[in-house]
């Protein structure tokens, strides 16, 4: 089958699906959906349809980005627009079948929005949803719209058109197009993609390799996972084009084993692409051949670093090596290798189809196009977003993310994964691009964005991220291996109230040594959270080491729980709930927390009925309480 025939077949199928006489039900079956019960939603739909004898197409789709609203189910009834329903439960499925599929009530009460131009009364347009409105979806263009396990869905949506186009171009033209787009590596370092390809293509050594870095290990980051699960063919197509541009026939995808669904969908995609003649020998009848193999990581964060990743593929211990030589000169098995990130590859097909200039029309002067971010933490609408480069942190957090839940004050945002910096409110108007973030002391990273509110202790956050990097350090170079545990120990001491004033300077010095002296990106960025946190939140650090206070009331060693004598009703709820029997008291007696025994779990605070609100959490201060439980009246009279 030639490409034209492939397209025709796919388009016919696609059109038949949407314009046929059966309803189409799309179920968000990415990891985010599955985590909140999408599988049982799917099963209920299947069972219910069977039982009711309703014929419908059930299509699993990837993540559209509204992760906080999962499970998402879209229903398209013949002749009606596609309606998206959020936070679907098996019970809601039954109602939807009854009310919408069997009757004609689209249930605006539980509908989130409609797709397309046709509107349905009482239901807003989905893309006017504040989380989606200002997004520009290029890398994630197909996520949530197509069945990632059906190549025809991809082809019907311009899939492999770019590959077909590229096969008629010269390698230099392909690289030129990518150059025009200004696309920079989406893995975090922001190296111009065209330059990697150009250098690899010029290298005389053979064979060469294309490697896709899908070892997304940052805590709270799931940009790559969404694309892998939602649109695997876009990555394959990007890789095949890269292979064509640099002149090689071998590609590897290094994907973390913790992404089993991504691995499965990639393998299905590879098999289908091979079957269709889009991968393998003589792609689409051309002279060009390309094969892709999946390699699974074994759980080491550092294997996301390029050289460690390649050693891991080679079967060696994943430890970074010093550049030069860069991997385009000496990568896998010492041969020229172009290593690009998942999102980078996913951007390639649209760039080829629409032209580099089109892509470059988005973004800033130096950072072109869009960037995906995994928006998490203390944010009203966590999820996956794709926005043009240069959008400010404020726009992202407030306009798209809906700000902080419960209107609590914003405190900081960490960009770029565990070794990104924590930026304060004063920098919320910073545009998000490679250079500006670096100036502010943070990094773009692969796109993690963790929002923190006033209840977050910046010292504790720093401690957490340093501990993460300490555990994930490979152990090769001295500063990272020896320095991070030392920083971690000091931070542990500080959060335990054993910090000394000079510890803050010591952390700055150690951090400086580690950043300047370390071998790879892990070490050279790991101290970022500490250093930015000290830079922007110094008073909080001083509170810890000088006053022995944790202003955010997080560090357990620095906080205490008290029962206010004047408010305690002697109800006994806290006493019964305390897991360590640290509360003494009795009926109508004022309850008292034994500070020695208290483990600061906060159960008493949580359990104390709101009408009493007798339990308080304090730091660095003592609340006067009676020495032993005394009757409430007696106490009041005494006072």
């Amino acid at each position, binding site marked *: 089958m030639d490409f034209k025939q492939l397209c025709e077949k796919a388009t016919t199928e696609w059109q038949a699906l949407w314009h046929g006489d059966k309803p189409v039900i799309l179920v968000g079956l990415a990891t985010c959906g599955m985590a909140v019960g999408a599988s049982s939603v799917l099963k209920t739909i299947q069972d219910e349809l069977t039982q009711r004898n309703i014929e419908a197409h059930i299509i699993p789709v990837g993540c559209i980005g509204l992760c906080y609203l999962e499970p998402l189910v879209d229903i398209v009834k013949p002749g009606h627009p596609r309606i998206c329903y959020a936070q679907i439960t098996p019970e809601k499925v039954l109602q939807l079948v009854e009310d919408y599929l069997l009757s004609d009530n689209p249930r605006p009460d539980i509908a989130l929005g409609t797709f397309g131009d046709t509107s349905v009364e009482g239901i807003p347009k989905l893309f006017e949803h504040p989380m989606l409105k200002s997004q520009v979806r290029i890398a994630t263009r197909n996520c949530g719209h197509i069945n990632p396990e059906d190549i025809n869905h991809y082809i019907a949506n311009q899939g492999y058109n770019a590959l077909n186009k590229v096969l008629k171009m010269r390698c230099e033209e392909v690289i030129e197009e990518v150059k025009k787009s200004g696309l920079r590596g989406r893995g975090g370092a922001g190296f111009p993609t065209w330059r990697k390809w150009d250098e690899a293509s010029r290298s005389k050594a053979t064979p060469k390799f294309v490697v896709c870095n899908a070892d997304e290990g940052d805590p709270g980051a799931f940009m790559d996972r969404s694309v892998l699960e939602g649109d695997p063919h876009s990555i394959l197509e990007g890789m095949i084009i890269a292979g064509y541009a640099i002149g090689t026939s071998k590609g590897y995808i290094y994907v973390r084993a913790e992404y089993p669904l991504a691995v499965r969908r990639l393998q299905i995609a590879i098999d289908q692409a091979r079957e269709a003649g889009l991968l393998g020998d003589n792609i689409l009848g051309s002279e060009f051949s390309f094969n892709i193999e999946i390699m699974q990581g074994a759980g*080491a964060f*550092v294997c996301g670093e390029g050289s460690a990743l390649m050693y891991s593929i080679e079967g060696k*211990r994943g*430890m970074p*090596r*010093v550049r*030069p030589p860069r991997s385009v000169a000496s990568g896998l098995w010492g041969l020229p290798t172009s290593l690009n990130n998942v999102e980078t590859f996913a951007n390639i097909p649209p760039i080829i189809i629409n032209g580099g200039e089109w892509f470059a029309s988005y973004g800033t002067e130096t950072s072109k196009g869009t960037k995906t971010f995994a928006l998490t933490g203390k944010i009203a609408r966590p999820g996956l977003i794709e926005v043009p480069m240069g959008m400010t942190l404020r726009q992202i957090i407030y306009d798209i993310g809906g700000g902080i839940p419960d209107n609590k004050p914003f405190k900081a945002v960490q960009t770029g994964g565990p070794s990104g910096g924590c930026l304060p409110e004063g920098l919320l108007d910073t545009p998000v691009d490679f250079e500006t973030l670096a100036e502010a002391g943070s990094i773009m990273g692969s796109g993690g964005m963790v929002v923190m509110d006033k209840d977050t202790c910046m010292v504790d956050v720093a401690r957490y991220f340093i501990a993460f990097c*300490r*555990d*994930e*350090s*490979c*152990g*090769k*170079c*001295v*500063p990272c*291996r*020896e*320095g*991070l*545990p*030392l920083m971690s*120990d000091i931070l542990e001491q500080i959060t335990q109230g054993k910090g000394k004033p000079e510890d803050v300077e010591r952390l700055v*010095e150690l951090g400086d*040594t580690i950043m*300047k*002296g*370390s*071998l790879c990106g892990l070490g*050279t960025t790991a101290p970022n959270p500490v250093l930015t946190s000290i830079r922007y939140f110094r008073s909080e650090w001083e509170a810890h080491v000088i006053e022995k206070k944790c202003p955010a009331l997080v560090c357990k060693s620095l906080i205490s729980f008290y029962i206010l004598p004047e408010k305690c009703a002697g109800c006994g709820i806290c006493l019964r709930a305390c897991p360590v029997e640290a509360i003494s008291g009795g009926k109508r007696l004022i309850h008292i927390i034994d500070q020695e025994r208290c483990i600061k779990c906060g159960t008493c605070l949580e359990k104390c009925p709101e009408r009493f609100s007798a339990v308080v959490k304090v730091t660095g201060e003592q609340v006067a309480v009676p020495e032993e439980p005394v009757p409430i009246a007696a106490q009041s009279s005494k006072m």
Partner: protein
Amino acid sequence: MIVGEQTKIITLTIDGQQVEAKEGATVLEAAREAGIYIPTLCYHPSLTPYGACRLCIVEIESMRGFPTACTTPATEGMVIKTNTPQLQELRRNIFELILAEHPKQCLTCAKNLRCELQEVAARIGVEEISLPPIHKDLPVHQDNPFFERDYNLCILCGRCVRVCQEVRGIGAIAFTYRGSQALVGTAFDKSLQDSECQFCGACVDICPTGAIMERSSKWLGLPERSVRTTCPYCGVGCQLNLEVSGGRILQVSPVWENSVNEGQLCVKGRFGITEFVHHPHRLTTPLIRKKGELVEGTWEEALNIVAEKLTPYKGEHFAFMASAKCTNEENYLAQKFTRKVMQTNNIDHCARLCHSPTVAGLATSFGSGAMTNSINEIGGAACIFVIGSNTSSGHPVIALQIKRAARNGAKLIIANPLEIDLCRYADIWLRHMPGSDVALLMGMMKVILDENLADLRFVTECCDNFDAFRESVEDFDLDFVGKTTGVPREDIARAARLYATHKPAVILYAMGITQHSHGTDNVLATANLAMLTGNIGKPSTGVNPLRGQNNVQGACDMGALPNVYTGYQRVDNPDIQKKFEVDWRCSLSPKPGLTLTEMLDAAHNKHLAAMYIMGENPVLSDPDINHTREALSRLEFLVVQDMFLTETAQLADVVLPAASFAEKDGTFTNTERRVQRVRKAIEPLGESKPDWWIICQIAKKLGAQGFDFEHPSEVMEEIARLTPSYGGINYKRLEECGLQWPCPTEDHPGTPILHVGKFVRGLGRFTPLQYTPPAELPDGEYPLILTTGRSLYHYHTGTMTRKVAGLNILEPEGTVDISPADAASLKIDDGERVKVTSRRGEVIAKAKVTEKSPPGVVFMTFHFAESAANILTSPELDPIAKIPELKVCAVRIDKIK
């Protein structure tokens, strides 16, 4: 360095100083070359740069951050600063991080004063360690006989891991765990003995701290001095230092700056010397047989008896068995003594049992019977063909070159019936039947000729007798060859193409080629193959017999052979005879003497009456032990000169205690014809004496002139005078480095490659060959083929290695290696004791069931007296070289009821 290779020189600026460096050098190498100190810990010149200790950070104009000097290539015009205040501070901070984790009890550390951490600390000036100390509290690993691993002292520089992987090609240790928990260890934390470790000690020698240290010398303090000498084990001739204190060798360390072993040793050289030298079983007084018993006597008495007993047997009734373990000077004196004093050419030595076909065959083909090229060229070959050599067991340090070449992309062809260690690195493994080498090699040559892959220009210009050879090749079509060798036809063709098309290609062989009843034919076949493809007389080519004993090359060079004087000057050449008669002031016999195997037959037939055996143990090393023992006991008089009371010495009338190699001066000539110094490190033990001294004393007792030597250097002067190929060799020159013969004059630099431009004999001679099967093939009664060889852990008849406790722990006994198929049909379990019987005798040995032996073939080493393989082996001789067929005989294996 490969001849003709030009290196460009670049100029850069380091700390304001103009510095020149070779293109391709790193910034660190350029700085060191210019005498600029940059501290390092993970760097080692024999390893690929690693960049982990971060101490060699520098500032380079136009480069961001602080690149490491060890990993950054120096480029033209580069401007580098190595010592700015910022760098100094950063470096000190990093170093302090290392020290935070390193115990600071230097005074009680065995590495004190030799520790590289101390050196760096002193150089970069550590004022205080303000970081809190971290105690790892790890147990010290004592899981092997030779060294201890105390990872509390480890700084994770990875030098041990890298040397094990990159240089040794083993990878027994690696980093385990990660981050601050990272440790060096074995797979799954197994003990080293259960790992792939071969106990070469490279990790011990490369460790910058006290983390890995040799146990026996750990607490003995610093040596008083270190004496460079040559290893006494195999023919590689590794350079090593004997570290001596108070008359004892404390330990052995490798010499880094030399082209033979480049800082590497094997387990025997590294850990197997001290113990045998100082072994309590060393003979320290002469022993004289009185009333059937060997009793202690004085030198005077012993020498008088020897002189008196030998006097009547001057002439054809006397024979001397010289030794490939002794120095050149000693072998020279042995043959001079035999020829001049005892008036016979009956002198030979164990080269008869290993490389006599090499000497005969390569002399026929090329005009010189020695390794054509040098060890350090092997790494530069594009194709390496190893046939009949288990190199990693027999010549471990040469195997490193092969592994290195293979890693760098060279094609490796292994031809061996056994699955040897090198098979793991091979592109093709030809598992041919023992004894089918001629068929295999001729088959390959037929492919090369049929496919027009021969270098016919070289053949026409440089060789003769090609037509006759070509005709004989026609008999070796692949059907016949495949059937005879048992190797798939396609593999033979592939190997032939690989060898013929990847140049330069080098052939390495050992006793798998020579120890056959047609051993000379085998050697001629390898020579034919090299000539056919023009792979001779150029770097990284040639035919390279790997000589077995430390000085087997030298013993041959010195004329410890029945037909030649030194330098292969024939005894039956009247001009040569005249030359020696004039110099030695005596008359000499032109009649070639008996070979070693013929000597034993002659003793058996009572044609010989007296023998003088120096440093050999024929009872274990020669085929058909029962015959050997009987032959020696029929002698009228036997004098044995050895370090130990060997199986042979026990039969002697007089036993003379010889000094070890560590107790004397001299020279050994290694397998690549390199004459290297042996240096006295300690005084001879007890009353033992150097072999050269003993021979001279006996000669003088017999009234001979010309044995008044005060020092071996004087012997070398005489050798040089009489031997054209050694003409330019003297001790003064050898102080600097070894010299490869031919070295005819004092200004000649030596000859790394033979036959450059022209063969020694003029034209290389092709020899037509026919296939002859081994003399004894399996039959109904003896259905299995026994082939013999060496282990990595033991040496020869075990005289030395079996005195080393650690080696006995690693390999306590000999085994008979049998394939799972044969073991199953004989119902033999792994580890079971079995009886191995041949037409000549039987031994009991432990069965080792292993796929390394092919079905139908069993394998034994000959190191162990308790299960002596040579009770079984065939005495069938090669008609030309008189070497027995030690590699093939028919045996039967029975369960012990």
